[in-house]
């Protein structure tokens, strides 16, 4: 492989990492604030993809605009789901099986809704942008990947801003650290949790739209991405946003470069195996390793 080919792969991995990070951050928020493992994340990725698709196919709205619209729409959907279902789960400091199974049931329901409305055939979003390529020197990549990367990074930046510069963001971080202490200092846990859930679902929907611009999708499209999101947040340390970025980068690099050594048909197994390894070997994620090292310093 020439240096140019390797460089191409590296760029491809980076672009992918951006989308992966955006896809996983929604789960991190929900997990951090409520200690709920949101298996329905896959269902909302799928709905986000179809949302952007429908806007494009029916109304001619550019998918990027569709993604931007997905944020508020799915925010409200998320809050509605929280009000309907999630708030009935007894709160806990540890993730519970109750929440896991409940959201799993929700995922099944969402999948079936997808089948009923759109059928089982794969769909794809095809814009003039989809088939065009961009070249920077010897490196070339599809335009759409760069665009998606840009949007992903921007939204992550927006989230960082919210988390550090707004009251809500600080409340979220407080709850992530210690729910009871947060309550003591005046955080309205119920309301913050609801809004945080909404934000998490908003990111899921928008990320689904972004993924739809890259890949074809069908109602069970969320599954493989859900597993990748798990890998990423576990690698990243489950509660750290910087960790999500690191985890996304690691997974994207491993996936992209593994094609050099593995035949294509084994590639899906990488994410799954990495998940198991990460859970067993690195329960605190990469961020945990980092913290440990610094604690001893």
């Amino acid at each position, binding site marked *: 492989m020439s240096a140019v080919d390797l460089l191409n792969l590296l760029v491809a991995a980076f672009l992918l990492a951006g989308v992966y990070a955006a896809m996983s951050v929604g789960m991190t928020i929900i997990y951090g604030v409520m200690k709920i493992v949101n298996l329905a994340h896959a269902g909302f990725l799928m709905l986000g993809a179809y949302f952007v698709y429908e806007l494009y196919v029916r109304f001619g709205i550019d998918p990027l605009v569709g993604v931007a619209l997905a944020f508020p729409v799915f925010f409200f959907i998320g809050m509605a789901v929280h009000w309907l279902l999630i708030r009935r789960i007894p709160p806990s400091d540890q993730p519970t099986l109750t929440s896991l199974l409940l959201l799993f049931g929700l995922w099944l329901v969402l999948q079936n809704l997808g089948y*009923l409305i759109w059928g089982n055939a794969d769909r794809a979003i095809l814009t003039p942008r989809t088939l065009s390529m961009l070249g920077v020197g010897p490196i070339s990549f599809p335009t759409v990947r760069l665009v998606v990367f840009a949007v992903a990074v921007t939204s992550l930046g927006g989230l960082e801003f919210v988390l550090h510069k707004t009251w809500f963001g600080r409340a979220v971080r407080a709850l992530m650290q210690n729910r009871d202490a947060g309550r003591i200092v005046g955080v309205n846990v119920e309301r913050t949790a609801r809004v945080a859930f909404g934000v998490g679902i908003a990111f899921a929907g928008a990320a689904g739209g972004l993924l739809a611009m890259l890949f074809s999708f069908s109602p069970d499209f969320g599954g493989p991405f859900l597993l990748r999101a798990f890998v990423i947040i576990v690698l990243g340390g489950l509660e750290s946003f910087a960790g999500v970025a690191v985890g996304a980068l690691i997974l994207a690099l491993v996936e992209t470069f593994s094609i050099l050594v593995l035949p294509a048909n084994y590639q899906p197994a990488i994410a799954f195996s990495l998940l198991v390894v990460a859970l067993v070997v690195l329960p605190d994620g990469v961020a945990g390793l980092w913290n440990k090292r610094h604690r001893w310093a």
Partner: protein
Amino acid sequence: MEQKAPLGMKRAGKMRVFSRPRFTLVVAPLLLLTILAVLPLFGPGPNIIRLLFVTFVWVTVSVAWNILGGFGGQVSFGFAVFYGLGAFTAALAINGGVNPVLSFLLAGSVALLASLLVGLPTFRLKGPYFAIATIGVSEAVRVVMTNFSLTGGASGYRIMETGAFHQLQHFYTALALAVVAVAVSILVRRSNLGLALIAIREDEEAASDLGVNPFRVKLLAHALAAALTGAAGGVYARYAAFIHPQGVFAFYIGVAILLMPIIGGVGTIWGPVIGAVVYGLVHEELIASFPQFHLLLYGSLLILIILFEPGGVVGLLDKSFRILARARGTSGSHP
């Protein structure tokens, strides 16, 4: 006040033999078993036999999963691994000329070994993390087996048996296996292993403080459950005569295996059986006419059960009984 006689004794005058709980634990199940065993004599047709066969297989895996997931509280999404490994092991063995019953035993053994491989690293994880890890394992195994040339890879694997096909042979084998599974489940429940599992389910730390070794108990329960599931996979494989990794290792198989006990009543003896019957019969018959709705049905059921009746069908029965008894004003509810 005249002391109320225990309810059992009230009926002593008429039917003393029905006054012991032992009746429901021995006579009633035997009655059910007898009915199922003689059913083929009434000429129900090959389709009904096939339906019952599938149901018996589901009963086995449902009861098996419940040993670890219901008694022990360790929710595994990855039982398709054992089902599939059992299926392929039995298929390879039968094609190699091994007696079918031995093949099923072999299938169970291979699944048991696999359960140790899976359990050793993952049982250190708590609750939901264990569940997620099992998803990863299940999918990884599926991808690997789809590319494993010894078992035909993505072409699937065919069992070529000489001799005529006797549907009833499969029917009775599956029924026997289901009976074994339920028997194992009852034995475990009434043994120290069962107590240990329940203790772990309620509070693992407290249990270990009391001298239970959670890791070993979980491994043991996992092994039993996997062995039964593997044997069931083998029984199924012999009937279908063609198995494919995308079929037997599919994620939705792991999901189904988990759903059945939860719907029926997780943690009870007969809950998983009811759940399997519901799933097996309903799934095959009614949902075949409306294939588009089954995920909706199961997802909604799961949500409703988790939110409102975690005890599943059995839990509902319990509640309705208490309401009925209270309405009748009998001593069914203790004052």
